[in-house]
């Protein structure tokens, strides 16, 4: 018996191996550690949490509601409507004498809600379609990919504007149309991953155990490509927020008196010639902070989940 074999049979070695088995970290724990080491990403998560808290609880600090007009400053918005603690308008008032702070809180709610709900939903939709196309191949794949190429050659804003103008401009409609416009999100990348994985042994094994295609896709393939989906979601969410803001800027977004970052920025941009700069500055600052945070979170997630790339 060679020394190496002797060593391997020694009880100490077995114990160490068992120890290693117990303490070995999963892929996700590894990723979490890598993510937490990325200082920018962690700070960004904190910023985003603060933004979400602001959107949820901000109203309790406001002294005005977001649709109430302060008749005292109306007509003299330029001189008396600026940001001040004295009359409770922390961010000043808007063109119509409504409290900008309360409106920014409301706008943050809309933008974040639309961003996260619509962003996640469209990536889920895109991934399921992508997985279907990649798994079944053949005719199914052709149809889905055909629809994908056709869809890409239609500028989305057209569809968006038509939909919003004709079906009303509520929050639900906005989320719906964003999901509809973005159904291609993540489709291509998930399709590629599934095509790569579907010939692997564990899928064959599952098939031999008599599992249905549906179960194979959702129980065996999806968990293996979850990391791709997570990365993609982190890219799509800021894009969706931007999309919503652009559409609101064009005036076909959320209906007044409800508002969003884009709508507020648009109002601020319209009135900045009158010298009421705060009306542009505050919404734009919130928008930019959100985008910066989401950018670095996405970056951190990519580094954490896909370390090969570095």
């Amino acid at each position, binding site marked *: 018996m060679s020394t190496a074999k002797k060593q391997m049979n020694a009880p100490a070695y077995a114990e160490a191996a068992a120890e290693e088995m117990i303490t070995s970290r999963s892929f996700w724990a590894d990723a979490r550690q890598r993510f937490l080491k990325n200082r920018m990403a962690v700070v960004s998560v904190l910023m985003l949490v603060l933004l979400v808290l602001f959107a949820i609880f901000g109203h309790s600090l406001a002294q005005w509601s977001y649709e109430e007009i302060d008749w005292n400053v109306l007509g003299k918005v330029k001189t008396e409507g600026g940001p001040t603690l004295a009359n409770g308008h922390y961010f000043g008032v808007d063109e119509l004498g409504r409290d900008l702070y309360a409106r920014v809180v409301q706008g943050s709610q809309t933008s974040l809600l639309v961003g996260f709900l619509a962003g996640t939903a469209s990536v889920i939709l895109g991934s399921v379609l992508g997985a279907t196309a990649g798994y079944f191949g053949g005719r199914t794949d052709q149809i889905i990919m055909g629809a994908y190429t056709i869809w890409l050659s239609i500028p989305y804003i057209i569809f968006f504007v038509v939909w919003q103008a004709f079906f009303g401009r509520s929050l639900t409609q906005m989320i719906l149309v964003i999901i509809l416009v973005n159904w291609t999100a993540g489709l291509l990348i998930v399709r590629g991953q599934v095509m790569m994985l579907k010939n692997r042994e564990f899928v064959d094994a599952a098939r031999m155990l008599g599992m249905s295609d549906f179960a194979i896709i959702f129980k065996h393939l999806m968990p293996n490509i979850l990391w791709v989906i997570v990365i993609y979601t982190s890219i799509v969410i800021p894009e969706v927020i931007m999309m919503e803001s652009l559409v609101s800027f064009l005036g076909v977004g959320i209906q007044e008196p409800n508002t969003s970052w884009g709508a507020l920025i648009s109002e601020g941009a319209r009135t900045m010639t009158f010298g009421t700069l705060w009306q542009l500055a505050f919404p734009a600052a919130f928008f930019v902070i959100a985008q910066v945070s989401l*950018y670095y979170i996405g970056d951190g997630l990519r580094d954490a989940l896909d370390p090969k790339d570095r």
Partner: protein
Amino acid sequence: MLNYTLRRLFTVVPTLLVLIVFSFYLMRLAPGGPFTSEKPLPPSVMANVLERYGMDEPLHVQLWTYIKNIVFHFDFGPSFSQKDRTVNDVIAQGFPVTLTYGFWSAVFVLACGIPLGIIAALRHNSFWDYSMTGLAIFSQIFPNFVLAPIMVLLFTLSWGLLPGGGWNGGQWEYIIMPAVALGTSYMAGVARLTRGSFLEVMNSPFIRTARAKGLPERTIIIRHALKPALLPTLTYMGPVFVYMITGSVFIDVFFSTGGIGQDFIDGAYSRDYSMLLGLAILYSVLTFTLNLLLDLAYAWIDPKVRSKL
């Protein structure tokens, strides 16, 4: 190559058909219409108006007439909201404007983005490199609808250098801000991509060979590295064109350039069916044409792709 082009041209027909049919039914099935107003028209007048615009017929007949008119007469129908103009008039007036600053914007994207990316790659990890990355992040965060107001604030309201909107027959002062506002984020994207691919190419064996032959660095860059390094950038330009066309709607609205974007948004508000459909078709055809040209350019540059066509 010709074969490929023809094949691509054939796919545009089903694409446009899908777009037309889908938008047509979407618009028509929605409540309201171009002639609904606060004070409803008397039924007899309404009937006359509907007949005048051919809207008294069943939907599929109207759709068929619409498509027939486009195919045989190149007629996109009368505008419902701008009473004395046809959609063809509106496009003839607004489209050159959008196309002009769109073209200059694309020039700006390529003429600034590519050199910036190359400089950043050649001076890897230097001040230039870091400023470039900074610029890329900045422009990703300041999309055109945030950037444009800030630019107007600085260049028009504070310094009075450039006009804050309007078109004035397309004088260059009026083109600068729309073109830059439209292009900045894509310029940064192009720079980032060029930087990445340039770094990769510069480390590849054939560049080492060129160096070993004793070629001067400038020849290596221009004759050997540039073409392969620009391929990813070219692929990226496809989506960029789509987004620039999309973004032009915003630019038209914000800078009041008089381009088709404003008519499109107005059309959506006033339920101007023919205007919306006509402009939607125009936007899609534009997207398609640019993508096709790009693919052909790609094949022209990359022999591997060419052989597959």
